[in-house]
């Protein structure tokens, strides 16, 4: 990110687009809020002693009956909405980033190796990728989650919920990385520097990760932002469906699911404020992804 911003062209494009600047600010603001949630948030939403039922269903400050200590109101349990959202965004981002990281490592390793070795290994990896591409990510993630539920005993499952969810999302997103890494590797394989490195007798691992990898980083960076948005969306969708995180450690998706119960009763803030947060986060990341793609691929401009 910093490396390309130093190139004047990227910086110039950046300064010309208000949407991209706004998206950057939004992303960074939510990121800071999520990372420092334990210090910023007024109360700890996981700590049952820190809130009371008597404060339940208070509206945001600017509506009638709002109280200064609950800036965005409270839910039916009396939890402060800001605190829930900050902790929720923390979980959403944590799972999203972890899933994206696992998908990147898995996909890039397989893609690099497939492009480098070719032959039967390449064929097998790409066949699996093709099959998975036909299945939409949400179906894959649901299926992996269902299998995990069947395999793990109930008590272990509660503890590992976050990890099962992360792994399910990661395993449904690796294909993009593998295909891009393989395609870029195939291009690099014909370059002289790679051939020279191979002829010097360097080990394949070294050629792949020290020589080829830095040169295919550009397109991968674009996919990473786009897939981070997908991962956050997937997590939110699964949690909304009641398959993801439970209500006692809510992510943004769980908060929206809880808020759905208040759709008809007029407590709009319980539903719409987490929704607004989620949409702002995902739209911002997608705008950044589009911007990065334009920077790395001047033909699209």
């Amino acid at each position, binding site marked *: 990110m910093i490396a390309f911003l130093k190139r004047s062209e990227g910086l110039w494009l950046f300064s010309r687009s208000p949407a991209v600047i706004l998206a950057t600010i939004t992303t960074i603001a939510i990121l800071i809020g999520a990372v420092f949630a334990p210090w910023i948030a007024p109360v700890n939403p996981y700590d049952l002693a820190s809130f009371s039922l008597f404060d339940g269903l208070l509206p945001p400050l600017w509506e009638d009956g709002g109280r200064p200590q609950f800036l965005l109101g409270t839910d039916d349990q009396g939890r402060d909405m800001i605190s829930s959202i900050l902790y929720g965004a923390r979980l959403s981002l944590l799972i999203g980033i972890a899933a994206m990281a696992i998908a990147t490592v898995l996909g890039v390793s397989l893609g690099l190796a497939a492009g480098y070795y070719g032959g039967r290994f390449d064929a097998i990896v790409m066949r699996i990728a093709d099959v998975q591409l036909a*299945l939409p990510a*949400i179906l894959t993630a*649901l299926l992996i989650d269902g299998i995990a539920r069947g*395999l793990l005993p109930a008590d272990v499952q509660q503890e590992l919920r976050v990890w099962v969810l992360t792994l399910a999302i990661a395993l449904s997103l690796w294909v993009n990385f593998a295909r891009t890494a393989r395609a870029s590797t195939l291009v690099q394989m014909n370059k002289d520097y790679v051939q020279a490195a191979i002829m010097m007798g360097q080990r394949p691992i070294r050629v792949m990760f020290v020589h080829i990898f830095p040169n295919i980083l550009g397109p991968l960076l674009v996919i990473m932002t786009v897939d981070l948005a997908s991962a956050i*969306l997937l997590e939110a969708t699964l949690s909304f*469906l009641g*398959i993801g995180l439970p209500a006692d450690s809510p992510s943004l998706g769980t908060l929206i699911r809880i808020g759905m119960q208040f759709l008809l009763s007029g407590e709009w803030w319980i539903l719409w404020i987490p*929704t607004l947060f989620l*949409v702002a986060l995902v739209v911002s990341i997608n705008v950044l992804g589009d911007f990065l793609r334009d920077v790395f691929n001047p033909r699209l401009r």
Partner: protein
Amino acid sequence: MVYFILKRLVQSVFVMLAVAFLAFSLFRFVGDPITQMTGVETSVEDQERLREELGLNDPFVAQFARFTSNMLQGDFGFSYRTRQPVAEMIADRIPATLELGIVALLISLIVGIPAGVYTALRPRGAVTQTLLMTTLIGVSVPTFVIGIMLIFLFGVQLRWLPTFGRGGTVELGGWETSFLTVDGWRALILPAITLGVYQLTLTMRLVRAEMMEVMRSDYIRFATARGVPMQRLYYKHALANTMVPVITIIGLQFGGVIAFSIVTESVFQWPGMGLLFLESIRFVDIPVMGVYLVVIAFFFVIVNMIVDLLYVAIDPRLRVKEAT
């Protein structure tokens, strides 16, 4: 042509076998079927007898062969949760999901194709910029949020449309349809839009990209130079050549529509296969999960075969290639 169809048929059979194998592995290895079927009181001897009766001690290949042949005869086993035959449970839900999916796909095509053509022909116009910005949001806003927004606006605020269930349905030779009642159509509108929006953005972006590509090609330039009227040029010469990729995405989108119908059905409590699948995941009802996969794969294979045949019908060049 006959050879081409045969080749596709053989491929399809292999895809179905692979999916059946996945469903079988789910059933066989995720959890023990016997503990799922029997209660706590069942003695170990009874469990072992049941295991022998069901043939779960037979060799793996024999078990898979029996599983597949049972499926071919319409015997999909029993649900762990409701103890009903899975075949009945799924068959009851198929019409709801298919009707929802078809209407969503139609919305995506009827709105998406003209919008794609328009944005390609006027790339700098204000309407185009607005549409493109909207599609970016359409991709970023999750399906369930779109559903909630529609429910809030048309169901809660304006009170125009129902927000859950299928409304009135009519039984038509075993097929429960909501196409024949006003009530059914009213219930269908919001879920179908929710499901269609994401596909619509994809259709629009693809048609736009294809159209721009075609407009740059030599034969279009030649036709312009020859003085072919612009309208005829756009809609006859250019659009016809974007149809091949558009048909491809209908095949691909069908998978997306079915998968995202899980989300839409959950938001609108639409009694389709997706809702059943979600319940089966929540209760680890492995047989229903497996059969859902097989049924989805079957639809997918059928749609893609029709798409392949349509190619040949639409693009004469493919016919020549097959002949040589």
